[in-house]
Every structure is written in C-alpha cells, then in structure tokens.
C-alpha cells in the first residue's frame, strides 16, 4: 500500500490534481482500495474535492477530482 501511495502522491504533485477515475485506472490499484487511497490523500494534503463536468451531450457526465490547494511537501511515508 505504501508504494501505491508514494506513486499516487507523486502523480498528484506532478499533475496538481488527479481524478477518481484516473486512480481507478492505475493498473496496480484495486477497486476496493480506491476509497481508502482517496481518503488518505484528503487527510494528508491540503486538497479540495471538486466535481468536474466532462460533457453534457448526449447525457451529462462528471468526475470527482482531488486538487492540490497549494504546493505541498509530501509527508514521509513509513
């Protein structure tokens, strides 16, 4: 789990934001781990959760995004 969080943290810092859909698409992350990982990111970094509209045609689609509020130094991973 630590390795996964380390890579996720790096991706979040690198991109500035990461969507839940993107986290789900990372091959080594299981669907059952996504909620725990999202919550870990929320509780350890200064982030905001936003809903981004993907498109409205032919039907409305949206995605939840974790966005860094400001430059954050990752905490050491034990």
């Amino acid at each position: 789990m630590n390795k996964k969080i380390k890579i996720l943290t790096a991706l979040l810092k690198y991109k500035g934001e990461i969507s839940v859909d993107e986290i789900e698409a990372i091959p080594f992350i299981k669907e059952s781990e996504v909620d725990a990982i999202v919550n870990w990111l929320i509780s350890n970094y200064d982030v905001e959760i936003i809903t981004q509209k993907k498109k409205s045609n032919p039907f409305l689609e949206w995605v939840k995004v974790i966005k860094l509020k400001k430059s954050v130094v990752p905490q050491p991973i034990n």
Partner: protein
Amino acid sequence: MKEVKGKNTKNVETKIKEIEKQVEKKRVELEKLRKRKCYLFFGEITRSIVEDVFDDLRNKYTDCNGKLDVVVNSGGGDIDAAFNLSMLFRRFGNKELIFIIPRWAKSAATLMVCGGDKLIMTPIAELGPLDPQIIEINPIERRLEQFSPLHIESTLNLIRDEFKKGNKELANKLIERLQFPLTLGSFLKSIEIGEQYLIRLLSSRILKNNIKQAKEIADRFTKGYADHGFCITVDEAKEMGLQVEELAGRELDIIWDIFRLYDKKRKLEKKIRKEEMLEMIKELPPELLEVLPKELKNVKGGKR
C-alpha cells in the same frame, strides 16, 4: 504533460462515440414508448452536480409537460445534494415523476429516488440503507476509520457485555480507545439527517399524507439493516409499502440495453485512462519508478 494518442486510443474513442449514439437512440425510443421525457442520471451524487443537472434540465427539459422519467444508476454520494436533486426533478415532473433503476440506487441515491411518485426497478436493481458513512481520522491511532453511527451502539453494547462478564480491564481498555463523547453523540445524531429528508420526501409524494408509514419506512432505511451495502430488491421495496413496479417487456429491454451500453463505455474509457496513466507514470522521477510494483516494472523512462 504531453498528450499521447495512439491509433488504438483513437479506435477506442470512436467506439465510445458510437456507444453514446446508441444510448441516445435507446433513450429516445423509451421516450416514445412511455410518452414522456426521459433523463439519464448515471454517477455519484455531489453538491456541484446539482447545478449542472439544473442547467441541463433548464436547457433540454422545459417541454416535458410535468411528466418525467429519470433513469438512475448511482452508488450514492452527498445526502443533502440527493435531497436537493430529488426536489429539482419534482419541479420538472410536477404531474408525475418516475425513477427507473436498472441496477443501483444505493445510499443517498435511494433517498433521491424516494422523492418520485413511483419507482420502476429491474429484477436485479438494488436500493440500499441510508445510515450515513463516517470517515474520520482516529485521534489516538492517527488512522482513517470508516463506520456507520449504528456501529457506535453495537460498540457500547460490546463494552457493556464485557463489564457484565467481569472483564473490567478489557472494557476499560475499549473505553480508552473510544472517541470524545460529544463527537460520538454528533455521529449518532447524523442518522437523523437521512431520516428527516426521507420522511419529507415520502410523505409529500409516494405516501402523501401518510406520515406514519413514511416514518416507519424511514426508520427501516436508516436503522433497520446490519450493513450499508445491504441489497434491497424490488420485492422488499414493495413489501415496505413503497410504490414500486418491476420492469418488463420492451421497457426492460431498452433500460437494460442502456445500462449495458453505459457499462461498456465506462470500461472503454478506463482502458484509455489506463494508457494515459502509464504514460504519466513513465515521466515520474526515477527514484519513484524503483518502488513500482512488479506488474509495472516494464515501464521505462523517468524524468531526470
């Protein structure tokens, strides 16, 4: 971040567009069959999606003459937003609002669909309990905990039992690990949020002027199930006293096709995202690539 779009990705994108066209065709077919407008709501309920749905309805659904079907496939989300959305759909379906559930309307989505005049469910559609899920950092152990307020009562019962059995040391240790009493009290109180919203929705449409039955159903949805994931099927929803019908015939075919097509689209989108994420991981610093799990060890590169 450079954008890499291979031939394969383009093919998948074409397939996705084709699926979207098919979904739209099915939606229009359903509208003709049921002689009313149909709205598709597929996804998590968030606060800001209320605004986007509002825009969508104002742009495309002002001509629905008070009759509206909403096809819902959602695992839930924000309970306040769910209540607000339900009230919003009511404004457009002010004569008749019907929620159609192909597979899931769990948790907060259950609350949302209880705001209509009727539910129509496939034989495998599921509603779910409404006990809130609390995610908190345990202040003593500094780790995330996810639980339902219903677990507080069962934990207190466990401690009481240990005291009764004479295991005072164990009971005291358990008490030490409990959270601040006021926090526990506020968690317990949070059950009432879903309960109050549900009573309001049920007693103003499905169970109009039957506040007693609305309260009984709300009590069952918020406190009557052992687990948040509990599967509440069409038969149980009927037995509870909700106005529910089981989908059949051509309507079932169309709704199930829409669900299957949407699922296929999600899988294809995931395939594209997977490739994009692998590209991004390639660009991460090499020291991070060294800790990659075995299955990703073939990822080459790394920004230096």
